């Protein structure tokens, strides 16, 4: 067998073929021949090398150097520098620094501590990871009101968007005497760009269940419903497995652990309406009625599902509860900042290198999240805006990159944490198109119950559509703000009250984008 001092693997796949890999390979062979290297260096074709968007790439052994985005003219340099002089060409080497030291932040994770570690379909692994210890502790050593106090002391706020203190919400329902109370989990994650609840339910379904159990015990509910959007088939499947396993182990059922407490959990599948994320519309839908919001008061805490006292909590909120009960409120409050304790799960997408998820302490700046957890902006693009909190969120510009992401800090800038979706946009994105897309969404999702919202969302869309088509007037911008402010004051529920946030922030922060479209005639 012939001995080569070096081997070159050339990745052959659709992308590299399109980028002319064959020509480059021929050129490389030719160059090696010219320099009398063909007996020393072996060239092999292989399948994809697994680097996306990197054109023609090749891997050189024994150095294990990967060259990417190769052009014909690069070959001369590589042969000269690397194969003749033995100096790998730094300029073309694949930069792995982005992921090499990527920190998943497991040390600080609360909600997603098990996701990516344990098998979500195996209850034993959840137990092995310390699962259901809080449930055991609560049922055997704590009184329901102690749970409510602990959650209050932790400072946990609702993670669905509004940020209402969770312990306070529980304390309204807990003292009410009723023949039946309910816990309802809002898993109808409908805010565009948000998928944090999906990650929790499919990655660690038992954590949600344990949170539900603790809430049910605290407020005295014997039945709990998870209202989940129908698209989340994997979540539904894994929750079903988890509930069945919990029943089998006697973690759910009658007289749990001999405490005399009964509880069962059921799944209700939603049909995909944005308004059903509003808690009273959700309850209506769950009861089998058309999903439109109810008039408040009475609030669900007093008369919710089937007119019984009901606590409605978001998935992420409940997934925080087991850790709070197990480790105590003080431990929990050591995460995050004053007024916003704990962690937050973000879903990051858009013009970043590594879109995906992260869980970080409350109060982490947007810049840190983008740089450290999303790999920074895609090369060659600069940050222009971030839509934080989904459609009912706000457009932040680059002056707000260092704002701490917590409830109080964001409020100073009339911004909200919302559901935790972060859509990062570079200078290639036009704000008119973005706002158009957001307002089209609101028009589509308005439930039609109240006039300000059903007529308002249609009018808003008409205005932005006119601007987008180049038929807008300067006064349209003030009109958009005026209409959405009126809707905020008069709409029945949060759906009609929300468009003012993306509209005002887009127009105030990026007015030039709008004026450019308006003035193109």
């Amino acid at each position, binding site marked *: 067998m012939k001995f080569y001092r070096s081997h070159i693997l050339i990745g052959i796949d659709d992308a590299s073929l399109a980028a002319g890999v064959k020509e480059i390979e021929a050129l490389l062979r030719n160059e090696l021949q010219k320099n009398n290297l063909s007996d020393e260096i072996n060239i092999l074709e292989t399948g994809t090398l*697994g680097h996306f968007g990197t054109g023609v790439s090749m891997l050189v052994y024994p150095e*294990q150097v990967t060259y990417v985005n190769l052009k014909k003219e690069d070959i001369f340099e590589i042969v000269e520098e690397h194969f003749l002089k033995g100096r790998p060409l730094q300029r073309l080497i694949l930069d792995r620094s982005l992921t090499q030291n990527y920190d998943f932040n497991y040390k600080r994770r609360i909600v*997603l501590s098990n996701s990516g570690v344990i098998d979500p379909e*195996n209850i034993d692994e959840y137990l092995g990871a310390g699962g259901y210890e809080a449930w055991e502790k609560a049922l055997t050593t704590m009184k329901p009101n102690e749970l409510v106090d602990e959650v209050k002391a932790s400072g946990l706020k609702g993670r669905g968007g509004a940020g209402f203190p969770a312990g306070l919400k529980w304390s309204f329902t807990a003292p009410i005497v009723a023949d039946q109370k309910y816990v309802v989990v809002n898993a109808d994650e409908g805010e565009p760009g948000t998928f944090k609840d999906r990650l929790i339910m499919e990655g660690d379904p038992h954590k949600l269940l344990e949170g539900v159990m603790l809430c049910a015990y605290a407020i005295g509910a014997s039945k709990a419903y998870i209202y989940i959007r129908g698209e989340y088939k*994997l979540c539904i499947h894994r929750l079903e497995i988890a509930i069945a396993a919990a029943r089998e*182990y*006697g973690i759910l059922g009658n007289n749990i*652990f001999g405490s005399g407490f009964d509880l069962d959990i059921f799944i209700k599948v939603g049909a995909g309406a944005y308004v059903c994320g509003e808690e009273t519309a959700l309850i209506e839908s769950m009861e089998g009625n058309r999903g439109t919001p109810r008039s408040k008061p009475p609030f669900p805490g007093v008369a919710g599902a089937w007119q019984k006292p009901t606590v409605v909590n978001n998935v992420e909120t409940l997934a925080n509860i087991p850790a709070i009960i197990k480790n105590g409120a003080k431990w929990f409050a050591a995460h995050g900042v004053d007024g916003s304790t704990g962690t937050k799960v973000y879903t990051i997408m858009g013009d970043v290198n590594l*879109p*995906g998820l992260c869980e970080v302490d409350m109060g982490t700046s947007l810049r840190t999240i983008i740089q450290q957890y999303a790999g920074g902006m895609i090369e060659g693009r600069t940050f222009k805006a971030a839509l934080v909190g989904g459609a009912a969120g706000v457009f932040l510009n680059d002056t707000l990159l260092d704002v701490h992401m917590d409830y109080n800090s964001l409020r100073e800038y009339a911004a909200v944490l919302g559901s935790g979706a972060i859509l990062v946009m570079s200078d290639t994105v036009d704000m008119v198109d973005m706002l158009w897309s957001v307002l089209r969404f609101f028009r589509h999702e308005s439930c039609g119950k109240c006039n300000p919202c059903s007529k308002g969302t249609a009018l808003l869309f008409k205005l932005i559509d006119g601007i987008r088509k180049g038929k807008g007037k300067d006064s349209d911008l003030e009109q958009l703000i005026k209409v959405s402010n009126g809707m905020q004051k008069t709409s029945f529920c949060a759906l009609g009250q929300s468009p003012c946030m993306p509209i005002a922030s887009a127009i105030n922060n990026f007015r030039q984008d709008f004026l450019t479209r308006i003035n193109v005639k």
Partner: protein
Amino acid sequence: MKTLEELRKIREKAQGEMKLRESDYRYKVVVGMGTSGIAMGAREVMKAILEEVSQRGIKNVLVTQTGEKGLSSLEPVIDVIEEGRPVITYGNMDVAKARKMVAEHIVNGKVINEYVVSTTN
């Protein structure tokens, strides 16, 4: 229906199994099977690994699944865990790469550098 005592025993047993040194396994291969992973082919990757492991008659490896850990854009993601070593996270995996990973990493103990997207202690 289990008593608290029985549950504690299950917990202890599971804890032991999660620590590889107390088990019969040298390697644990964990395939990310969240929605993103499955959409990118994690099921096929999982199947390929299981086939490869059984065809080769490898006994010291435990293949299991989990949810998403992050780096969703690099799915399918696979962790290879070995006691006392950094966790090797492979990304952008496919069936061919998964088979190669079993041959190189599990059988020969050689990490395939070009598939690695992250290493965590």
